[in-house]
């Protein structure tokens, strides 16, 4: 199996999608690495569903407050211009289309941008805010490993896992490549260093449109 990019490099690439002034929701796990790669000349407000817009980073020892946590229940800090609010207001921001971008993990994504990331057969279901995010936030980037641990494709023709949202994913960043979800289906935009288009096709079930040239992520 080809290793491709590290999780940190994937986060660095995802951070390039964040524009000055954006409000961004980061999912639990790998997406939180994106926090470290936002350039200081950009004003970005990170939204955490439990009631904070303007999350700083993870609290250091001595900084933690029991009532100041992120969506993963980890103690965090807040930045200048931040605001705190209750859950209904937080989800008004999400459902009402006020958040610019969400970066989240996935079990599966289909060629037309359907997303599965809340449950699987034989697993206790758990949803959190995922279903609200996918209907409300205009741009959804999925950040995940290209295949499962045992090498099966996670980018599939149609979902076999229960769906979280339909046609909601606009970009997929994996350890191997960057794919854009378009009207024509998935388009290969960029390749991780040392990865070929052939490598990507070999472990993707969904069809991929190949432009004449692919950029390599620097």
């Amino acid at each position, binding site marked *: 199996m080809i290793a491709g990019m590290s999780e940190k490099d994937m986060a660095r690439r995802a951070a390039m999608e964040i524009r000055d002034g954006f409000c961004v929701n980061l999912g639990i796990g790998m997406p939180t690495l994106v926090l470290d790669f936002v350039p200081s000349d950009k004003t970005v407000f990170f939204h955490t569903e439990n009631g904070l817009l303007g999350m700083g980073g993870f609290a250091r020892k001595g900084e933690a407050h*029991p009532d*100041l946590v992120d969506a993963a229940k980890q103690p965090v800090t807040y930045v200048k211009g931040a605001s705190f*609010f*209750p859950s209904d207001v937080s989800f008004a921001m999400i459902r009402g289309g006020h958040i610019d971008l969400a970066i989240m993990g996935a079990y599966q994504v289909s060629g037309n941008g359907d997303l599965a990331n809340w*449950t699987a057969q034989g697993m206790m279901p758990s949803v959190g805010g995922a279903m609200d995010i996918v209907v409300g936030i205009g741009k959804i980037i999925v950040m995940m490993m290209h295949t499962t641990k045992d090498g099966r494709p996670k980018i599939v023709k149609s979902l076999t896992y229960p769906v979280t949202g339909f046609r909601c994913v606009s970009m997929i960043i994996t350890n191997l490549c960057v794919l854009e979800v378009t009207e024509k289906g998935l388009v290969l935009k960029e390749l991780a260093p040392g990865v070929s288009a052939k490598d990507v096709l070999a472990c993707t079930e969904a069809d991929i449109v190949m432009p004449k040239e692919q950029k390599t992520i620097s």
Partner: protein
Amino acid sequence: MVNKIYRESLEAIRDVKDGAVIMFGGFGLSGIPQNLIRALYEQGTRDITVISNNPGSRLGDTEYGLAILFKAGRVRKFIGSFPTATKSFKELYEQGKVELELVPQGTLAERIRAKGAGIGGFYVRTGAGTLLGSGKETRTIQGARYILEQPLGADFAFVKAYRGDVYGNLVYRYTGANFNPLMAMAADITVAEVEEVAGAGDIDPNTIHTPGIFVDRVVKGERYDRWYE
């Protein structure tokens, strides 16, 4: 003279009967009414329906908050969004010892708010076409598919605020508000646990988050665990 202050947590929850439907504020461990939860555990109340975002929370190998009620087998049903927060819930669920009603987090908040605000339901796109939307009335509104969600109320709401006064006015801190202000509006009886009791008129009315009209009882929490360093 109105005075909603109770002397201790046990006194504030004494009339909670077996089989009660109770909302618990909090997200993870932030803003949870930890003293009221402990009092309910000590009182031995059984057959509870818990409405809360998560059934307690796990830090390292230890589970806190609502987890003590689940582990002691006191809960019949959980209505919430994130049951995977604890191993204890997962075990009970897999053994068929607890019922689960899974609700997307934003829908959970809005159902509770609807009950408190006297709204008889609402349409959202969240969950439409998914397993969590199945069986619900579907309607196309302005070209998009929406499902009907019902208001959600309870016999009791146990909430946690940073400060409260004799009138039941509450102030939250940081992300400690979360579901608390919504639940305070949605139950027959709302019990608020606070870190500080303020004197009459000592909270600036400009800064009150939950007006006292929504709160029946206020009690100063006996003990606050610090989970983080």
